[in-house]
């Protein structure tokens, strides 16, 4: 019996909602897990804090820690001026985190293992930075591409590199998350395949299958770390990019 490690990324259409032009808009497993993520976050942040206790219980602490974690990350990257983006960054962080972690549950689907989702989020950040940067700073936003203290004759090259690196931001921003999720899930599935394959050889196979099984346990712990870490990396890069829009001078 072979296991296809790619099958877990399939988008399964549950029912069609409508068509836009020639494109079909369907409710899919991906949509389902996005809704589950939103619902889970709402339960965490609103359901768990319904008592508004002065001394928080465990569940309320979880909501408070989430709040403070994102708030501290944003404040340390952008200062007090960036706090108007707090709901935005919090939404991005929690959405990515819950999509990543929910994807680790058996039989579930990982929303962030699709490049279109991570690219859309990265482009949202990219255009937010550009629009806010010009709206807030006007032409001074372009100082972002002109580092101070660079000799005149190499300035054009430096500016070219700065512009290029700015334009490549959404690519690295989105591919990093997408590739991490994709690779992690493929690895897990491949080792899972080893377990069933080796166990198929009979009694000796059962002992042989123990090794990849142990590997899966370890890798799952690692993937849990990666799920959190990538959400954090995505959020902190968002904060750093937003800081460029708020304080464009180098």
């Amino acid at each position, binding site marked *: 019996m072979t296991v296809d490690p790619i099958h877990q990324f*399939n988008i399964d259409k549950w029912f069609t909602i409508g068509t836009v032009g020639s494109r079909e808009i369907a409710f899919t497993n991906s949509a389902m897990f996005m809704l589950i993520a939103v619902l889970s976050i709402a339960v965490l942040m609103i359901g768990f804090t319904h008592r508004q206790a002065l001394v928080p219980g465990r569940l309320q602490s979880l909501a408070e820690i989430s709040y403070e974690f994102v708030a501290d990350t944003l404040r340390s990257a952008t200062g007090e001026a960036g706090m108007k983006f707090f709901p935005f960054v919090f939404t991005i962080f929690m959405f990515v985190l819950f999509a990543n972690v929910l994807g680790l549950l058996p039989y579930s689907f990982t929303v962030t293992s699709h490049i279109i989702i991570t690219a859309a989020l990265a482009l949202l950040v990219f255009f937010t930075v550009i629009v806010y940067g010009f709206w807030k700073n006007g032409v001074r936003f372009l100082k972002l591409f002109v580092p101070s203290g660079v000799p005149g004759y190499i300035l054009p090259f430096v500016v070219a590199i700065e512009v290029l690196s700015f334009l490549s931001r959404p690519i690295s921003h989105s591919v990093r998350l997408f590739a991490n999720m994709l690779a992690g899930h493929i690895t897990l599935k491949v080792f899972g395949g080893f377990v069933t394959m080796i166990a198929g050889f009979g009694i000796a196979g059962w002992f042989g299958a123990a090794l990849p099984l142990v590997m899966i346990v370890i890798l799952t712990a690692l993937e849990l770390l990666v799920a959190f870490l990538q959400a954090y990396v995505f959020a902190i890069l968002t904060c750093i990019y937003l800081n460029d829009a708020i304080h464009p001078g180098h």
Partner: protein
Amino acid sequence: MAEPAAHTEVPSEGHKAGFPPFQRETFASQLVWLVITFVLLYAVVAKFALPRVGGIFAARRERVEADLARARGLRDEADAALAAYEKALADAHSRGQAIASETHTKLTAEGEARRKALEAELNGKLAEAEKAIAGTKQSAMANVRSIAAEAAAAIVERLIGAAPAEPAVAAAVDDALKG
């Protein structure tokens, strides 16, 4: 309609056109649902979740500050009470000392006055007694003179057999008394 939750142990007949993340026909659905869920989540987060948790933090901070302020007020009150108590104690102490010294001086003065009065009285008595003694002495002296004169007259009469003249005896006695 595909089965919702059966993509783990299923053999590879499932996927249609290559690698699922690059199947473009799924992009539109994913984007539509991403927009719907992201906007929904943003609204929930911005309208309900963050204000509530932020409110919890603010309430906690306020409560802690209020409690601290109350504790500070109580401590100040206690300090003030202690200071008042100490001041009252010191006042009582100094008043006690004042009363004691006042009483002392009064008693001393009284004693002195009484002593002076007694002394004066005694002095008076002494003077009186001295006067009485002087009077007694004088009268005694007078008696002595007359007795001496009589005795001298009697002695002279016995010796010579004739009574001497009164003035001569008196002069002789006076002479003897002076000597």
